[in-house]
């Protein structure tokens, strides 16, 4: 901060030096303190609580009892095992589909490649919970629409079943949901490698007398392997964190994963057990931090032999011949499975007074009444209001904090700025459910309990800021770096103060990135599920939580109505936002 470091002209004593140090960095001190409060305090509190029995506000002394109890529970090991198996198998499925799609889009002459791109991006807009609910309606053993169709088909062959043949409420169902969900992200992570791969590597193999197949297995695949492996590890970690599908279709079948086990322990079971929940939370967090550390190492190792250059050429294209249209068909099937089918069944359910599978007679009672009815429900308007406030405040606060912190990190030479930067990245590696649990622990216990924000919209807002600040600072860091330092310096020598420079030069130049980040956070806040649900009370319910309430109360019609409204809002917003963010930062969101 060159312009604000003015020292008085008399001899500075040591104390004065320290004070001027603090004063000139007052801003940094304040921002850092706020972020510490926001991130570090809850995490420390969570760890402390795992060593305490009883209600966290009235602990009964320090003890290892929670750990002994937790690690003796068979449920815990079953949940851990399920989490690992679910993540591993669904990652393999995701990878296989994503590699096939990336190869088809980038390296073959498949028609309508742009259409394929759009089809593969849209699922991003569907919140995981809606995806799971849609499939619950399609594949529940007795009334699932697809099961009814399948049973009718099997009857033609003389096979009579009273339920099934498929059951979404099973480990297989979970794997199916998680495996499909991850494809978009992994596709985006590896498609660049497929596109940018230097074709001369393959050509060199060909002129060295390798066959086409030999070239693929000895050159193409090994060259792309680092990208594929890191994407696979990333997907494994994300699957470990998944909460929505395990909640919607795992819990009813008694299948726990770590995230739902925590939710169950501190929100559903009676009486709730915060000590045990904290142990699960700490274990879960440590496990994921370790996995992410391994992931980072792998990425760094992979980057060492990057043969994927930045030139934008389209490499050799492989002719698919008669397989061109079937290839495109696979994208359509993917789109139907991830978007169209769940959306259609939820839409159907939203048109009925109470749920029944699609049939001709049910068509008679179809109406849009639910869409009117929902407005007369108690809380509905309050919930919409909460959601909008949450979106606006979370987005503004996240991006402003990110802007200030990034400016400090990128532009100043203040000591400890690197530490600040990594502190902000920490929550990114912690599952939302653990962040929420840590918030509960911190704001239920003194001294933070005096703020009385437990159970309000504020605690939800803070939880969301904590999870999104990592994205915000990444975006701001890369954008500020792109702004040439001399543009700011030119303002200083033109007589502007540093505040004036921030406002007149830096912020306007950053505006596109700032706006894109704002929209990103707002959209994610709108669909956020695990944190609002963990922190929900009667006073702070938001849209997605209300929807879940209806669903768990058995009111499928109203839950579906909310779900359809949410999807209709999210699909265009998400696609627009993605384009915007890719444009301003060159980053994949």
């Amino acid at each position: 901060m060159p312009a604000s470091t003015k020292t008085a002209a008399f001899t500075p004593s040591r104390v004065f030096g320290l004070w001027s140090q603090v004063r000139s960095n007052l801003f940094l001190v304040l921002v850092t303190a706020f972020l510490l409060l926001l991130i570090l305090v809850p995490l420390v509190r969570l760890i402390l609580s795992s060593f305490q029995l009883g209600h966290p506000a009235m602990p009964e002394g320090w003890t290892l009892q929670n750990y002994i109890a937790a690690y003796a529970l068979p449920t815990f090991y079953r949940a851990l095992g399920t989490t690992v198996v679910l993540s591993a198998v669904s990652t393999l499925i995701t990878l296989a589909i994503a590699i096939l799609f990336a190869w088809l889009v980038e390296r073959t002459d498949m028609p309508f490649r742009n259409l394929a791109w759009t089809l593969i991006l849209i699922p991003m807009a569907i919140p995981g919970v809606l995806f799971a609910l849609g499939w619950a309606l399609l594949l529940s053993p007795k009334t699932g629409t697809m099961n009814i169709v399948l049973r009718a088909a099997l009857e033609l062959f003389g096979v009579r079943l009273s339920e099934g043949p498929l059951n979404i409420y099973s480990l297989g169902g979970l794997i199916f949901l998680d495996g499909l969900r991850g494809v978009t992200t992994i596709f985006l992570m590896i498609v660049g490698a497929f596109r940018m791969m230097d074709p001369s590597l393959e050509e060199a193999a060909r002129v060295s007398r390798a066959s086409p197949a030999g070239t693929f297995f000895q050159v193409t695949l090994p060259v792309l392997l680092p990208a594929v492996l890191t994407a696979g590890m990333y997907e494994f970690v994300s699957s470990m964190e998944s909460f929505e599908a395990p909640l919607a279709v795992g819990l009813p079948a008694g299948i726990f994963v770590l995230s739902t086990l925590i939710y169950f322990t501190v929100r559903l079971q009676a009486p709730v057990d915060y000590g045990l929940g904290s142990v699960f939370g700490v274990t879960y967090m440590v496990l994921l931090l370790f996995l992410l550390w391994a992931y980072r190492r792998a990425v760094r190792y992979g980057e060492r032999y990057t043969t994927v250059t930045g030139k934008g050429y389209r490499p050799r294209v492989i002719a698919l011949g008669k397989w061109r249209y079937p290839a495109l068909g696979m994208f359509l099937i993917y789109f139907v499975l991830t978007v169209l089918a769940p959306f259609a069944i939820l839409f159907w359910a939203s048109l009925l007074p109470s749920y029944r599978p699609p049939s001709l007679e049910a068509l008679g009672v179809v109406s849009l009444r639910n869409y009117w009815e929902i407005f007369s429900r108690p809380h509905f308007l309050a919930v919409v209001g909460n959601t909008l406030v949450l979106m606006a405040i979370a987005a503004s606060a996240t991006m402003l904090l990110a802007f200030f912190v990034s400016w400090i990190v990128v532009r100043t030479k203040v000591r400890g700025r690197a530490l600040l930067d990594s502190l902000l990245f920490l929550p990114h590696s912690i599952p939302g459910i653990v962040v929420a649990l840590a918030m509960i622990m911190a704001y239920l216990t003194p001294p933070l309990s005096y703020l009385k924000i437990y159970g309000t919209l504020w605690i939800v807002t803070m939880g969301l800021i904590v999870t999104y600040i990592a994205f915000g600072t990444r975006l701001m860091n890369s954008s500020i770096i792109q702004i040439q330092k001399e543009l700011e310096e030119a303002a200083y020598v033109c007589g502007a103060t540093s505040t004036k420079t921030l406002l007149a030069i830096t912020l306007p130049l950053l505006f596109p990135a700032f706006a894109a980040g704002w929209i990103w956070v707002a959209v994610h806040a709108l669909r956020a599920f695990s944190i609002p649900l963990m922190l929900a009370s009667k006073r702070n319910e938001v849209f997605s939580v209300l929807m879940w309430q209806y669903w768990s109360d058995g009111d499928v019609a109203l839950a579906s109505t909310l779900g359809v409204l949410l999807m209709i809002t999210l699909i265009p917003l998400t696609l627009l936002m993605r384009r915007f963010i890719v444009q301003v930062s060159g980053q994949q969101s």
Partner: protein
Amino acid sequence: MRVKVSGLTKTFEAVDGLAHALQGVDFEVQPSEFYTLLGPSGCGKSTTLRCIAGLERPTSGEIIIGDRVVASSSTFVPPNERPIGMVFQSYAIWPHMTVFKNVAFPLKQARPRPAANEIKRRVTEALALVQMEHLADRPAPYLSGGQQQRVALARALVSKPQVLLLDEPLSNLDAKLREELRLELKELVRRLGITTLYVTHDQIEALAMSDRIAVMLNGKILQESTPKDLYLHPKSKFVAQFVGQVNFFEGTLAEESASGLASIATEHGKLSCLVTPGLAPGAKVWVTVRPESIALSRDGNRQEMNVFKGKIVKAIFLGDIIDCQIQVGKQPFRAKLPVTSDLAEGEEIYLHFNPKACVVLQHD
């Protein structure tokens, strides 16, 4: 306005400890003088300029602009309060503003803020100085490199600063435009009579534009002088090499004669040279000769000339001159020949040069 820099040091924290960018820089720029800091990249010339601008805080030392101490151990005036205008290497034209708004920016920072029509008048005046008034409403991203350079200059001059700081302002332009703008810039600052500090790594730019030049290396000023003196009387091998091309060879000072000329023993024979005082007989020295001071001929008889015998290894036709590489014993020489010369590669020839064109430097 005068600029005085004394005992300036600047230390950066680098990955492997401390980097000493400036190690005691002293100089004084007179009012209306065009003063150039010349040196290779990393020599500290830009850091010096940025310290004067207030963009870097000196580790120690004092900077005075006019009568005001702007940087010392107890004072630091931020850049926005210094009476300076600056042109950056990248021009730093703000892309979210038009040409007019870019140039108006410094005026709008003044307190009290000038009236709108006063701002308009002065911006137009500044743009006229650089012949850019017709592009006032153009958005900054639609300017060519040369136009951006002019706008940056107008922005630096609009608030009528006392000191103009120029950080390699011509290095991002193509050769032809650079030559054009070099003259224009020199003419403009001379007309305005503004004290100018110029940073460059291009010796031709420095020689052509400056009243005085300071050659910097490793955070220190090696020599400070007028362009002509610097070229003719370099005080060290580095300066001789950096400012223009030069031939070197080793020798031993034999004796000093009355006329200021001394005789020097080299492996190619005895030479008569101009000597800087202070060298004792028997001292090891470097003898330097500029390529353009060397004449070549097929016979060796010249009065009062130093003569070496050599062989033309290469002769490259460059249009205005012929660039010759000549082997004298094991020592390579360069010479510049007029294009009318008929000497050819492989010929045995004689090199002649005037004793007054030989500069003797202390051996390092």
